[in-house]
């Protein structure tokens, strides 16, 4: 065999062996479904685990008995994407979603406002005082504060929080 082809073959095989397996795409409809149905009692720990597998971290909320929060990272970007909170019967009671770059446009501020039009959304500002920092948190509040979208000064969505 020609040496040139042999070297080329080695390079290609090395590249393919280092390629991480691409995690199956979870589509936007599933994400909307969860965000829209937190209070419908259709999402349970079991169902979440079927889709996302084991959480990266589990927190037990000291203030509310029997409550657990499961944290999941984004499969490729590798930082926090979801927090799922469960009640004592393992039903989903709140969700916090941090859209990653693959869904920035899907879960943009504009799209969320349109999607939640029936929920009477309002842009709100809350002053936060720390000992040496004064800052304003800006968020879109819908459905009597049950759905909140936190965004930054560039109108980029940082997190979407839904509670029952």
């Amino acid at each position, binding site marked *: 065999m020609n040496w040139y082809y042999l070297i080329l073959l080695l390079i290609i095989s090395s590249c393919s062996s280092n390629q991480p397996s691409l995690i199956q795409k979870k589509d936007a409809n599933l994400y909307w479904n969860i965000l829209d149905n937190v209070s419908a009692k259709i999402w349970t720990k079991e169902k979440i685990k079927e889709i996302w597998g084991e959480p990266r971290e589990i927190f037990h909320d000291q203030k509310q008995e029997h409550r657990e929060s499961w944290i999941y990272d984004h499969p490729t970007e590798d*930082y926090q994407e979801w927090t799922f909170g469960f009640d004592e019967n393992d039903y989903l009671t709140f969700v916090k979603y941090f859209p990653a770059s693959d869904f920035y446009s*899907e879960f943009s501020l504009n799209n969320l406002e349109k999607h939640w039009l029936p929920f009477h959304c309002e842009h709100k500002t809350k002053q936060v005082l*720390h*000992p*040496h*920092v*004064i800052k304003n948190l800006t968020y879109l509040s819908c459905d009597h504060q049950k759905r909140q979208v*936190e965004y930054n000064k*560039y109108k980029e969505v940082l997190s979407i929080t839904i509670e029952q």
Partner: protein
Amino acid sequence: MKLFSIILSIFIVSSALAIECTEGMYPVSGHPRTAYFRTDGTYVPKTNVSSYCKKYRSEGPLQIKFLRKIPKGWPFKKEVFRKCGDKKQKNINQVVNTLPKILTQVGEIKILCAKKSATANNPATSALEEKIIVLYDSSFEMDLKRILTHELAHFLYHSLSTKELKQYWKVAQWSDFNQAQNFTTKRTSFSAPDGATDPEEDFANNVEYFYAEPEVMSKNFSLITKWLSKFLGDKQ
């Protein structure tokens, strides 16, 4: 094959260092990008992204406006304000000129001097949206460069992209686990004790230490230092 990878890495690193950017831009080193799907379902394969120049998220170079009167709506009513004297103004301007460029892309900042903070042992207070920094008398008896680095790091935190924020949370082990903006971390050690309060204070402390005491940072918080080096390092 290892040799090939090493040569390739050296080539990527050297090409990144060689890149020079014009005013208002900073170099981003070449890096491998993992495969992903766009929202419309298009598959984007993994690739090696070449070095390129990226615009600062800039509101323009820092310009200082010295104010005398108490800012409207200032929450700490008992603080006594005064105009910064000539000597203090000169001192502030000199320090600002030595700060890393990435900290000074904030446009106009209003600086006021005040006698004493309402909070004990506090040399400065920043109002982020109003772009105000209040320097108390004690700050001029301390390391002013360090204090201004810390305050401007708060402004930098608020200009981070959502991706950069999440990268920082991950490397500094912060997680947001409930309805309220309520971060928690398993870390027990911080560059300064009030870093335990929240990721933003932790970030401002770490940026301050990154510049003021790099060896301490590197020794005690190697992963955070590595991330800060990547993020701040070539944006001097």
